[in-house]
């Protein structure tokens, strides 16, 4: 695998991981070129493309899948099985789904580092490391827990948030009547 790219329907990159070295300009150009090639494709056309000029020409293939607003593109060389990579993309997306609970594009945008970590558990150095979804998720969770335990003060708000989320708040009364003081409770949105 030479590169893994995720970009949206307008070509904005959401994740870019290159397993070979290119300069920054080249990387951006590759992203743009790949976007051009892939966005021109119809829906019911096959998911394999010859690679663009920048990314190795005709020995490398672009294997892509289109999910809602995102394109997942894997640029591979001839040693990978094309149909296998299609399955790999599927497993990757399902893993993201499990980790983020109904993943959508926003999740990928805001948690770019987490996506990278998940990807690192699946593909290492351009080769497929692990394809078992539950295994990947267990590892990622364990590492996240380690991170949280170290977070210290900076993590306190996050911890508080998760603590409150897990609490079971009783129903808020609309009016608090203590003696002859009447406090009207504002209508706060439920904290979930």
């Amino acid at each position, binding site marked *: 695998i030479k590169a893994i790219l995720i970009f949206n329907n307008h070509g*904005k*990159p959401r*994740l*870019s*991981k290159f*397993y070979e*070295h290119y300069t*920054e300009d080249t*990387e*951006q150009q590759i*992203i743009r070129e790949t976007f051009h090639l892939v966005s021109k494709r*119809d829906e*019911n*056309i*096959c*998911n*394999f*493309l*010859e690679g663009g000029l920048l990314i190795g020409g005709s020995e490398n293939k672009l294997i892509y899948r289109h999910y809602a607003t995102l394109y997942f593109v894997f640029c591979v060389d001839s040693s990978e*099985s*094309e*149909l*296998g990579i*299609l*399955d*790999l993309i*599927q*497993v990757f997306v399902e893993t993201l789904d499990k980790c983020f609970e109904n993943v959508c594009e926003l999740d990928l*945008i*805001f948690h*770019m*580092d987490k996506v*990278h*970590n998940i990807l*690192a558990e699946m593909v*290492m*150095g*351009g*080769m*497929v*490391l*692990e*394809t*078992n979804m*539950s*295994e990947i998720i267990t*590892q990622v969770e*364990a*590492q996240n827990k*380690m*991170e949280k335990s*170290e*977070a210290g003060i*900076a993590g306190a708000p996050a911890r508080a948030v998760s603590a409150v989320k897990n609490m079971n708040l009783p129903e808020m009364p609309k009016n608090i009547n203590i003696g002859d003081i009447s406090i009207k409770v504002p209508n706060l949105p439920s904290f979930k």
Partner: protein
Amino acid sequence: MPAPIRLRELIRTIRTARTQAEEREMIQKECAAIRSSFREEDNTYRCRNVAKLLYMHMLGYPAHFGQLECLKLIASQKFTDKRIGYLGAMLLLDERQDVHLLMTNCIKNDLNHSTQYVQGLALCTLGCMGSSEMCRDLAGEVEKLLKTSNSYLRKKAALCAVHVIRKVPELMEMFLPATKNLLSEKNHGVLHTSVVLLTEMCERSLDMLTHFRKNEKLVPQLVRILKNLIMSGYSPEHDVSGISDPFLQVRILRLLRILGKGDDDSSEAMNDILAQVATNTETSKNVGNAILYETVLTIMDIKSESGLRVLAINILGRFLLNNDKNIRYVALTSLLKTVQTDHNAVQRHRSTIVDCLKDLDVSIKRRAMELSFALVNGNNIRGMMKELLYFLDSCDPDFKADCASGIFLAAEKYAPSKRWHIDTIMRVLTTAGSYVRDDSVPNLIQLITNSVEMHAYTVQRLYKALLDDISQQPLVQVASWCIGEYGDLLVSGQCEEEEPIQVTEDEVLDVLEGLLVSNLSTPVTRGFSLTAIMKLSTRFSSVNRIKKVVSIYGSSIDVELQQRAVEYNALFKKYDHMRPALLERMPIMEKTAANGPAEIVQTNGETEPSIPDTKHLPSIIQPANQANDLLDLLGGNDVVPVIQTNVNTKPASAGGELLDLLGDLSLTGAPTPTPAPSLPVSQPPFLLDGLTSQSLFNDIAAGIPPMTAYNKNGLKIEFTFERSNPNPNIAVITIHASNSTEADMTDFVFQAAVPKTFQLQLLSPSSNVVPALNQGSVTQVIRILNPQKQQLRMRVKLTYTHKGSPVQDLAEVNNFPPQSWQ
């Protein structure tokens, strides 16, 4: 200094930017903040800053000032820091920066860390971007981790080892002992990565490959694992749409392919399991198809039995009918690979493939086109050509050039009749004329001159086409050349094949002049038409008009045209006596083999001749034992083998010349020049007809029947004859060796010896393996010079290895048909 904003905030702010300029502004502000924060050496917020930096890097902004910070993060003790630090290192750093070497020490410490996740991170980074120096230093640590019992680490170490091997191949032996136990793991992750490691080792080094085959008994182990996977039924962890761990299955199949390639024992061991996988996998989902595809590729590459191969091709055929485009694409690609070896089987699916030409998908169309060209043969040429021409009409411009060239090649090889050939060419020129490659114009011209009886028909059709449309340059060029040559035929209305049209000389000249003047003509085309007009001066009677036209162009701006016009003018004035001789009909040109070095000089009748290249083939002296073998072959009577290499000089008589069979020369396809200066050399230097192309083969000479020279023990050798045209004393024989036994004959060597009065030249064979059961044949070309026209006799020696044992045989061939040497 206020705390730097969190990554989330940054992302949110960036997304609110409405224009690119706004976004750039925000990012620059943030960059400045980050830079000052880095300068302050703030430990707590460093990871946050680097995370933001990575985000900006992804968007495309320069972020190299963060590289050192990544290093500091890696060196810190906190896991969070390390995580972001390593991620940053993987994204921002690479071998070309010197900074990365500083990481080596950190990685070394982390590889020995107590927490497995830290070790994992280190392995991951090393595997992604480790340079060769780093790999050399740390390979020992990686090897240690390869042996640990922690499966999480083991699998990462395996992939890291692959990266190390790729960077520093010498270290491969270091990992060898660790691989012994890898396959006995239960964890699929480890199995998967170890198979990758073994695959990499086998691909890189042949020694490893043989080692694994023989000593490790790798194949039985792999077969066992695969069997377990298939039989084990449903296992929720590894299941993907009903099949257990297809990724691992695919990888194992790939490794089996490498192990089995060219090796009989391993292939036999695999046959059963491959058959099982091929029949049991369900094909309704992509997963099943992925496995089947891999199985098919493996069956094709190893020495499998023929039943299995047929099964594989049938699976591919089934794929072709599948609705899913991906599957069809994949099937077409693999059929392309197998069409060389299993030609007949693929022919069965020809109609499906031709249907794929009409598919909407560009990638599929391209594959189908290539495959169709590979499948064209003498039987199906007419039908296929119809389809291909239709395809040419409707396909994308990118394809047209390739398609046109392919059609020309196919038509040349298999044309059933000259007229059909010319019709096809005309069709291509008119539909895709502008996309035709430039070198095909001379090829076409040569073809047309060869088909003598079709000249009138050809020129008439070309003339009509020219009247319709002068925008397609190759068509125009060919047409104007033909009109120049055969204009008299056109005017006299002699065409037999079609309705002759009535054309006057003036009309023809009008057309040609129109070409000269038109804006659509390129300079090359103008050159063609000017020369054509000139040639007509001998064939037509209206010389004055031609003189006028030519003199007009004597002052043309285009240098090429001007030169030609001036020279032609001179021809009219001073050399008028020579004019008819110079402008005669062109002789029939002989052609080099289509792929050989194209010596066909521009046939415009004008260019300098290229001096007949006397290529001196180096005579390779075979090792002495082979010479001795052949001297044995002689048996001491008058049969003396001689190979002449330097063809132009009359070779000295045989005597003690060592035989060299040219087996080592990589000459396939390159024509050797025969002495064929077919030009009258005494001519004014700037005008010359004719070519200096050298010829090897002409059309199959008047039906000399092929003969069977040898037929014993299942090996049959047939001779087919051709005459080499410029020198009728040279007989060209092609031998076809085919094998009707069940086992291949490898290391097949054919040697021949002829009597003293002959000279023999043996070119290199197409291969030295004769496949079993007549699945293919080895061809080799022999050229025999027979100046005294004596009866041809030959002694033949064959050596090959059959079923593991070497076989040698001698035979005399006396039954040459008389036409071959008379």
